Every structure is written in C-alpha cells, then in structure tokens.
C-alpha cells in the first residue's frame, strides 16, 4: 500500500518513527515482541547475578554487583516504557512472561556457580549483548533507539567491570584461576548462542532488516564477537574451550566451532539448567507482591478521592 511505501521510505532515509506515527501492524508486533523480550531478559537477568550478591567476596565487589543488578532492573524499566509507547502495558507483558507466552534470553537459564561467573557474565554475556545492541542504537523506532543509547552506555561499563573481575581471578591463586577457566568453559558457547541461529535458519530476518529493527545478521555479529573476545581471553591467560579455534588470515577473523544448536533448542523448549527456577522465582515475586501492589493502588484511589472531596469542598 502507498502508506506502507511512505513508511518504508522514511525508514530508508533514516528518519525515526515515533509513537504517534502510522506504522504497519507487523512492524508494531515485531517491535513489541523484540522490546518485550529484551525487557524480560533484563529482569530475569537479575537472577543469576543476584545469586552472588550476598556472597560477594569484598564490600567493594558487593557494591559494584548491587549497582550492576540494579542497572539491569533500570534497563527493564526503560524497555517496558518503550514498549508502552506501542500500546502494550507492562502488566500485559509480564503476564505473557509468567504464562510462558513470551521468552527471555536463554543465556539466563545457565547457572552462576562460582564467583568468576560474575566476571564471565559481565565480560561475555554483556559483551555479546552490547554487540547486539550497539547497532540497535540506529534502529528505526525512536523510543527504542533512545533506550538503547542509554543502555549501551551502562552495559559497556558493566563489561569492563566483568573483565576486571576475570583479570583478578585469572591472575589470582591457582584456585581462582581454575574458577576463571571453569567460568569461561561454561559460558563460551552459551554466549555464542546469544546471537541466535545461523542466518540461513533464521526466519524473520529479512523483513526485520528492511524495517531496521534488526541491523546486522546473526552470523556477522557472532564473528565480530569471537574476533574481539579471543584476544581478551588470551590476555587473561585463559583458554577458549574450542579446539577448532584458529585465526583465518584470509577472512581476517577466527574460524570457530558452532555451538551445539540442539542444546540451544532444548533450552528454548524449557529444558535448560535453570529455566524452571528462573520462572518460578519471577512468578513467585509477582504473586507474593500482589497485596503490595493492591495496597498502593488502594491508597492512590483513596488519596485521589480525598483530593477531589477537598477541591469540591473548597469551591
């Protein structure tokens, strides 16, 4: 349709689409799904790291970790707000999360088992997230683009903090170095999976790329991540757990093993190590909090009534 064409022209010219602008229903739906999943990932992502807050090894590490997990909740907040501009409320999105109708990033279904995992999550998981998100700062939808700009700034800070933890661990006692290597072993392939299956297997990509909701292909981003991360691992003195890893002079990038995609699909299906625990924790928080939210709402209603009564009386 001409409307659709005009829309596509604006996107092509690099104009930002704003909430009140007309947009195709597919564009809106895809964005709601993508932003919603991203928001859910932020709040579910609080759990694996939150798992170590009470056990952080120094007061400073505890403070840094608390601040980081708090930032993630803040990112959730921006993203739910961005989704709200598309006409879907936070409560609706949460309801879909809790009922399993919407997903969150599968990486958060892996456990954090030793302190170095807190480093690895910052370094690898936030690193992969940034790789995905930096291009999205140029996404066509205004509120989403602006949320990504804020988020990317904080994420790269988190990534540096994560790398600093890895450095301490890798240069620490033999036990600490073992923890660091163990964390890398466990998080390497799940991090590669964060970019999604290979483009040839990815369904929605073409339309999303035309709409500038997706900017790069999964494989491009994965390659970029490997190229940047491998030297960092070497600098730490750690071994990337991939025997096929090798520099390819011709493509000016590393050759590497594909992650085990059957594992990826099992985790998506709900069979990851922590899927059940993560969802149980979120649902429990929501259900246990019902009386609290109801209490605040009831007070707000009463307060509004009182204000109204007072203004009537004053007239």
């Amino acid at each position, binding site marked *: 349709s001409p409307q659709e064409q005009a829309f596509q022209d604006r996107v092509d010219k690099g104009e930002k689409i704003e909430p009140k602008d007309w947009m195709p229903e597919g564009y809106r739906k895809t964005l709601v799904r993508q932003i919603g999943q991203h928001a859910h990932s932020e709040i579910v992502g609080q759990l694996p790291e939150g798992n170590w807050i009470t056990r952080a*090894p*120094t007061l400073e590490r505890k403070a840094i970790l608390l601040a980081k997990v708090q930032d993630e909740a803040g990112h959730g907040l921006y993203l739910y707000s961005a989704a709200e501009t598309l006409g879907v409320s936070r409560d609706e999105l949460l309801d879909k999360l809790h009922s399993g109708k919407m997903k969150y990033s599968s990486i958060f279904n892996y456990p954090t088992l030793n302190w170095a995992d807190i480093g690895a999550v910052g370094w690898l998981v936030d690193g992969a997230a940034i790789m995905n998100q930096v291009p999205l700062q140029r996404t066509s939808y205004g509120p989403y683009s602006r949320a990504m700009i804020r988020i990317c700034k904080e994420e790269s800070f988190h990534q540096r903090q994560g790398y600093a933890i890895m450095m301490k661990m890798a240069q620490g006692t033999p036990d600490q170095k073992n923890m660091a290597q163990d964390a890398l072993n466990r998080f390497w392939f799940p991090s590669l999976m964060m970019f999604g299956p290979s483009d040839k297997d990815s369904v929605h990509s073409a339309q999303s790329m035309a709409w500038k909701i997706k900017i790069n292909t999964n494989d491009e981003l994965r390659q970029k991540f490997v190229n940047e991360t491998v030297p960092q691992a070497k600098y730490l003195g750690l071994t990337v757990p991939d025997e096929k890893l090798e520099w390819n002079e011709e493509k000016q990038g590393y050759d590497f093993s594909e992650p085990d995609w059957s594992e990826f699909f099992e985790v998506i299906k709900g069979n990851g190590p922590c899927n059940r625990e993560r969802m149980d924790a979120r649902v429990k928080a929501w259900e246990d909090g019902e009386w609290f939210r109801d209490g605040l709402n009831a007070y707000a209603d009463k307060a509004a009534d009182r204000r109204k009564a007072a203004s009537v009386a004053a007239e």
Partner: protein
Amino acid sequence: RPAFFEWLCRLGDNALILGHRTSEWCGHGPVLEEDIALANTALDLIGHTQMWLGLAGELEGEGRDADTLAYLRDAMKFRNILLVELPKGDMAVTMMREFLFDAYHHLLLTWLSSNSSSPRVAEIAAKAVKEVSYHLDRASDIVVRLGDGTAESHRRMQDALELLWPYTGEMFKADEVDERLSDAGVAPDLAQLRGAWETKVRDILEEATLTMPDPAGYAHLGGKQGRHTEHLGFILAEMQFLQRAYPGASW
C-alpha cells in the same frame, strides 16, 4: 579507645547486616521500581559499612580494614542490634523495619554530623545522613500507603509492627560503651533520642492508620554486646564463604 572501636563496629555492623537483608530482595521485588529502590538502599548501606568499619579498623591500628572486619569476625564479635538481622519476611516486615530503623538512624546521624566531637565521625555521618534522609522519607511514605491501603496490606503492616516492636528498645538502651562515647561528646545520649523517635514514629503510624504498641513493652537486647539471634550465624556463613574458603586471596 576500645569503646570507640566497639561503637564504630555497631554503626558499621548495623549498616552491613541491614544492607545484607535488604539486598536479598534484589530480583525478587513486588514491582520493578521497588526492586530498584531496595537495591539502592542496600548499596547506600554497604557504602556506610565501608566508611564506619574502615574508620574502626584504622582506629584499632592492628591492620584490619573494613573487609577484614566484615568478613573475618564470627557472630560473637558482631555488634549490630538484633532488629537488623531478623529475616527479611514479606515487604511489610522489610519496609516497617526500614522505617523503624531509619527513624532512629536519621536522628543519630543528624546529631553526629553536627555535634560529634570527632571530626571523622561527623564527616562520615554528614555523608550518610543525606542518603538516610531519603531512605526515611521513602520508607515513611510506603508505611503510610500500605497501612492505609487495603485491609490486607493494613493487617500485614500491623503484624509486622508488632513483630518488630520488641526489637526497637535496643536502639535506645545505652550500655557502658554508649555512655563513654556520650561522655566524650562523640555520640549522643541515646535516651535523649527516644522522644524524637517516638514522635516521628507516632505521627507516621497515625497517618498510616496503624496502632502503635506500648513503647515501654518488653525489649529484646544483646546484639550490641554480641549476643545475637539464631539468624546471624546463617547470614555470616553465606556472606563470608569466599573469604573463609580462600584465605588471603585477592578479589
């Protein structure tokens, strides 16, 4: 000087243990804004811990820094009041405790920041009081809204108040350490803070339509002298695990 050290540990341990309990909510709050606010409160409290225990260690002069004090003392050596180590409970218990403690904490820090004869103490208190002032406002606001919310939120807040009330007496019960610090002009006469605390608490509870228990009731004591509840040992087992399991490692 040993009294000064003890007294600083009390301030630092209150912040540390309350910060620990508050941080347990991270990722589990009833609503995102609250999750963020609780993490922020915990973060402030850990910051206060670093300052108070840091000064305590410095004063002691035996090479113990804030981390050493936080991570390598067993329960008998902790000096926090019992109130802050009770389990986090539901949000009613968490917010009511924060309110009851903050009302005291704010008075104490206000006094210290403008009256303490120790410039170091006054300086730390001046930094901390800004944050605690905000905590108190926020906690007071939530207590009012939940107290005057639904029948259930009211009931939960009243139950929380009654559970916690017997633990508030310890805040104002001065022992020899408190008296020495007060005599030296470092710290206030705790009994004198009580009146202002009761007024603040009474006002907020009234606005919250909650019934204030008798302030003269039975008080659970002992935390300031190292006699704790059964909960503290479990907190420390978790908190101190890495430092205990990997002695001497640097993180």
